[in-house]
């Protein structure tokens, strides 16, 4: 064999081997194949979910195990749609309900589990449970803790500046210059990540005009984004940005690196509006601050003249499990059994509470009182059970294709590139 043929044969076999290797990759993911699967996220309380499924697997018969894969938040959101769309979805599809779940239902990618959920429905707070119901049928069940957005405080900053924690929007406007003069940032905001600013927009809109304002957007009413409450909320956000309500460099602060929480923990900022999951982040990353008396939390301030009920909260009611319609019958059965027999078992509930996360259950008062983070959990429990309305985060509530434009236009509001009217016009254009 001379050199030329040798090279050719070599190249050909290398190519053939690569082809085989590549095509082998295609078969591995997704719901087809043996056993049920579930995709979850990383960080926060998610390791608890993973170990809970692990406990299910330990006691389950062969073939009834659930394989878990963890993804970072953004990576998950980008992948899950592709696998659901191609019929390769994991058996248990995690979602935030809202527009995404509505689309899954419309495309018949998830199954109706109304008659299969057993007594779980009676254990869960109604305001949370309803998020998994589409057109009267249950397509998703909550699977972790409630995540309302709350106002975190650094009491030391208030003491040193000699001001009181504001309870109303008028008081907020009073304390901003006072905190500024004392050399502190009133509110820490991770504007670089944009989504934390959405919490401001949600709360301000709700306080000003009530829950109906955003409901009109979800219902697709024409010009719903031009509501005076939304415009007012956007103006207030721009006012806060201009008048030093936020850090001067807030558009460069990133939430994925927990910079916003650090500003609060290190006493640079007085307050932080963030999701309830930040409570465990602060405990993990800034234990000294978390254990000190300086660390506090309260509700979003009330608006004196506003029409919204001050008990209203916004955030994520919870993450939900839906069952893939593309999974085999056996896999669906395993998934439903997991939901009815195993979900929110005592050990999982205890682990979740230990993390400072509150399961949306109405039969765990005792566990809450005896939990390590009882003060925060009681606070969250009261928020949720007393709330007149629990508004799902807007980016999840709107149709999936509107979510990205919403974030982009909000970012333009933050950097002052557009006016509230231009925001409304751009978003109204997305409704069609």
């Amino acid at each position: 064999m001379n050199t030329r043929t040798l090279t050719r044969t070599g190249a050909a076999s290398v190519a053939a081997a690569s082809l085989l290797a590549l095509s082998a990759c295609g078969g591995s993911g997704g719901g087809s194949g043996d056993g049920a699967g579930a995709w979850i996220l990383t960080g926060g309380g998610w390791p608890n979910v993973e170990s809970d499924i692990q406990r299910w697997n330990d006691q389950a018969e062969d073939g009834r195990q659930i394989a878990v894969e963890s993804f970072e938040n953004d990576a998950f959101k980008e992948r899950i749609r592709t696998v659901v769309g191609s019929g390769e979805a994991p058996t248990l599809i995690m979602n935030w309900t809202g527009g995404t779940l509505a689309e899954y239902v419309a495309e018949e990618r998830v199954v109706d589990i109304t008659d299969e959920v057993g007594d779980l429905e009676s254990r869960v707070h109604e305001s949370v449970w309803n998020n998994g119901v589409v057109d009267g049928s249950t397509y998703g069940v909550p699977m972790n803790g409630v995540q309302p957005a709350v106002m975190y405080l650094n009491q030391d900053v208030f003491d040193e500046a000699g001001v009181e924690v504001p309870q109303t929007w008028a008081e907020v406007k009073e304390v901003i210059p006072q905190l500024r003069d004392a050399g502190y940032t009133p509110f820490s905001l991770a504007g670089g990540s944009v989504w934390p600013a959405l919490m401001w927009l949600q709360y301000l809109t709700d306080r000003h005009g009530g829950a109906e304002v955003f409901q009109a957007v979800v219902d697709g009413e024409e010009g719903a984004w031009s509501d005076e409450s939304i415009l007012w909320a956007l103006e207030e956000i721009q006012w806060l940005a201009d008048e030093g309500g936020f850090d001067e460099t807030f558009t460069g602060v990133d939430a994925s690196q927990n910079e916003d929480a650090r500003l609060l923990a290190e006493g640079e900022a007085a307050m932080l509006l963030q999701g309830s999951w930040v409570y465990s982040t602060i405990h993990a990353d800034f234990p000294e601050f978390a254990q000190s008396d300086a660390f506090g939390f309260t509700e979003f301030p009330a608006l004196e003249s506003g029409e919204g009920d001050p008990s209203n909260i916004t955030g994520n009611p919870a993450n939900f499990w839906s069952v893939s319609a593309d999974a085999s019958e056996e896999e669906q059965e395993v998934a439903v059994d997991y939901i009815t027999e195993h979900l929110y078992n005592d050990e999982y509930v205890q682990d979740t509470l230990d993390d400072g996360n509150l399961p949306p259950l109405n039969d765990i008062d005792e566990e809450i009182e005896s939990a390590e983070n009882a003060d925060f959990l009681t606070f969250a429990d009261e928020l949720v059970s007393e709330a007149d309305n629990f508004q799902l985060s807007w980016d999840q509530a709107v149709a999936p294709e509107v979510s990205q434009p919403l974030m982009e236009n909000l970012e333009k509001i933050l950097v002052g590139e557009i006016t509230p009217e231009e925001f409304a016009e751009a978003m109204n254009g997305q409704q069609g």
Partner: protein
Amino acid sequence: MTQTVTSPKSDARRRQGPSFLMALPAVLFFGLFALVPLAGVVVLSFMSWDGLGTPSFNGLDTWFRILQEDQTRNALWLTFLFVVISYVFQAPVALLLGVFMAGQQKYRAFLSVLYFLPLLFSSVAVGITFQTLFSPNYGLSPALGWDWLPAQWLGDPNIALLVVIFVVGWCFVPFHSLLYQAGVRQIPATIYEAATIDGAGRMRQFFSLTLPQLRYTIITSSTLMLVGSLTYFDLVFVLTQGGPAGATRILPLDMYITGFREYDMGGASAIAVILVAVGVTLSLLLNKISGSSRMESDKAGA
């Protein structure tokens, strides 16, 4: 390889080089993994698909919509800026560093190792590290406290693109310096000796000898730089995700965000087709200008 040397006249009409058969595996591979998906993307660009439902044909609608969008025009303009400024920044730095590294001195060999390091890091690690360095509260600016440093790097729409271009350049200059270093080392020393005897100084030698001798390296490096920055994605995505307020949303990011964040697969495919068209045109143009199809060794007789 040796075919043309052993029997140069036996088959004069045949093209030089080894037979096409040898390229067959590569061609098949390319066809299967580049051309077939590309054809799919072209078809998809005439459809409307949200990634979840069933794709449906809608003729030229997607194209009209994408071409009329300010977003796309803005992305095209940003891509143009990104490519041009990247080139203007990277090419001279890489050339000078390469020439410097080609020297035989010990300290230069040591420095070369340091310059080479960015090439070994993964883009995501580089991106996250720079993100921390540019953090307005815990990064360079507050640490150094110099007034003239901007407080905002990646958060300021006016300079974000330049900052991104700098970081991308930081990553890719080492590679191009390496090309130039190899190029310079191939220039025969005798030419320089002759020039020294003729009384040419350092500057004169650089402009009259080094640069002309490096012309093919310059072409190779320029092509890689221009086409590479046209389609560059990962570092920009890690650093800014196209923000703030779309200030760094170059075409590849625009494609990704349109497809996987706005779930408009048809629109994303149309942008992808534009990207392919611009890329192919650019490489053809570069080929034409540089005459690299006529490229042969310039060492003959040296």
